[in-house]
């Protein structure tokens, strides 16, 4: 009887794993199969045309803008916040409050961020539906990711490093940027790469804050669409699955490259350091 139950469970384990892999392979396979015919130089670097035979270069540029602006703001703030929490703060109510806030921010769904961005950045700060409004919203979305990964990275820096440096008569600040931050760098970099992935994959928040204009953005104050929003809109408006899948291939390749470089960087720098 026990043997029968064991075999049944074992069979279920194999079956579930098979199912998961099969479903995920089907999705990626389907997207590549459906979209690969469209992928060529003109598709990626060509300007958009409403007729449908144009490229996706404006959406790629918009995506790059949003990544650059939100990281430019979120990275320094996130790293310094993590430094405060790990290196400076006395554990107490203040730190607890900050931690609670960071954790809560992680749990808020992106559509709520979108609502907030639409009323705060777009309307109250009068930025309008624009790349800058979307980037500022994204800044808040990735801030907790950067804080958490940087904190984890700072935790891995051995205490003896800090003591050794301080014993040489350096100030806390000198120790921080000459000793602690360099050794925490691989972890911090992986965190930043993770955030890029989050920004690239985001759709609902950008949809509500950057609008849907399909053209090369004139400046960061113009409305524009990112790759994900474009992929959503072509599916929703014209049912053009082939085009959506081709954009999907570009997105999957971006995510793949990001993941590989995160792994590579943390391995390489780890070796160099220790």
């Amino acid at each position: 009887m026990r043997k029968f139950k064991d075999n049944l469970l074992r069979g279920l384990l194999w079956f579930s794993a098979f199912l998961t892999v099969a479903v995920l392979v089907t999705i990626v396979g389907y997207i590549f199969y459906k979209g690969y015919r469209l992928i060529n130089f003109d598709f990626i670097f060509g300007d958009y045309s409403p007729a449908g035979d144009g490229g996706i270069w404006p959406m790629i540029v918009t995506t790059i803008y949003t990544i650059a602006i939100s990281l430019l703001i979120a990275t320094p703030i996130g790293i310094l916040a993590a430094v405060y929490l790990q290196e400076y703060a006395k554990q107490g109510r203040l730190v607890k409050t900050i931690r609670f806030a960071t954790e809560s921010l992680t749990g808020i769904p992106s559509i709520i961020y979108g609502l907030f961005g639409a009323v705060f950045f777009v309307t109250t700060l009068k930025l309008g539906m624009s790349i800058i409004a979307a980037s500022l919203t994204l800044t808040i979305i990735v801030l907790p990711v950067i804080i958490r990964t940087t904190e984890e990275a700072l935790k891995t820096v051995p205490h003896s490093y800090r003591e050794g440096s301080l014993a040489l008569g350096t100030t806390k600040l000198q120790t921080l940027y000459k000793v602690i931050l360099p050794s925490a760098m691989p972890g911090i970099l992986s965190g930043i790469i993770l955030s890029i992935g989050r920004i690239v994959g985001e759709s609902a928040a950008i949809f509500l804050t950057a609008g849907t204009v399909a053209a090369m953005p004139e400046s960061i104050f113009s409305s524009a669409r990112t790759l994900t929003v474009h992929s959503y809109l072509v599916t929703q408006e014209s049912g053009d699955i082939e085009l959506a899948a081709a954009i999907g291939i570009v997105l999957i390749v971006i995510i793949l490259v990001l993941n590989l470089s995160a792994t590579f960087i943390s391995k390489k720098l780890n070796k160099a350091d220790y």
Partner: protein
Amino acid sequence: MPSPLTEKQTLEIGKSNKRKYMLEKLSARIFLLCALLSVLSLLLIVGFVFYKGSHPFVAEGYSFIDFVFGVDWVPSEGKFGIFPMIVASVFATFGALIIGVPIGLFTAIFLAEIAPKSIAKIISPAVQLLAGIPSVLYGVFGLAIIVPFLQNNLGLAKGQSLLAIILVLAIMMLPTIVTVAETAIRAVPKTYREGSLALGASQIGTIFKVVVPAAKSGIMAAIVLGLGRAIGETMAVILVAGNSLIIPTSLTDSVRPLTTNIALEMGYAFGTHQEMLFATGIVLFSFILLLNFVLAKISSKGGN
């Protein structure tokens, strides 16, 4: 005895030290400020959403009860009832959990405990990668494959349905659940397994009676993360939901969950209509808090 330094030099060292101390103090303040920004963001988000969303009930005389339990959503006539959307969100989320959690959990157990190392080494990173794929793509796949499949095999007029949402969300939460649960199961000390096996338990018995209970908190975290992804998902759901404003009576009904209502109408809504969309956001928000609370309760009960 005269000092080896001239008076001027001593003064300069003092000055540079003073500057150093100033810099130290200043930088500590700046770090604190950065850390407080996350608190400020949270307060701003909650404040703005709640302020906007509560305005119709506080200042314009709408009843919150009618809002939550009303069945008609006709903004042009001033009718704002979101009960059908609440029902749709609840059913979609629980449906996805019922399918996604067992499969995801069993896959995680398989990868951590049963799978040959060479297989796990390929599958685990691949699944991890899939957790990062934009959710819109799951929606595109759902619309292209799942929706027509349901339409043809169940003889529906329209394949966009509650069932389609449940399937897309279940698939979407799989990579998250597998990745987090696998890490948790791998973190269980080897001695637990050895102890159980030494007592004569079978491998499967050890996994389900010893390893899984020991990894319970990590598994719970995996479920909460998967749940968070499912309940807040918007764009993928719009594509497969059908977005009809009815209370679903079967899995094949076309529905409109809370998130899609916000995304679909935010573009052109203004005045009270827009504020009601913020109120929809508040309900979604409370829903998430409640679910997390319930799950935390369940997991703490299991421990006793």
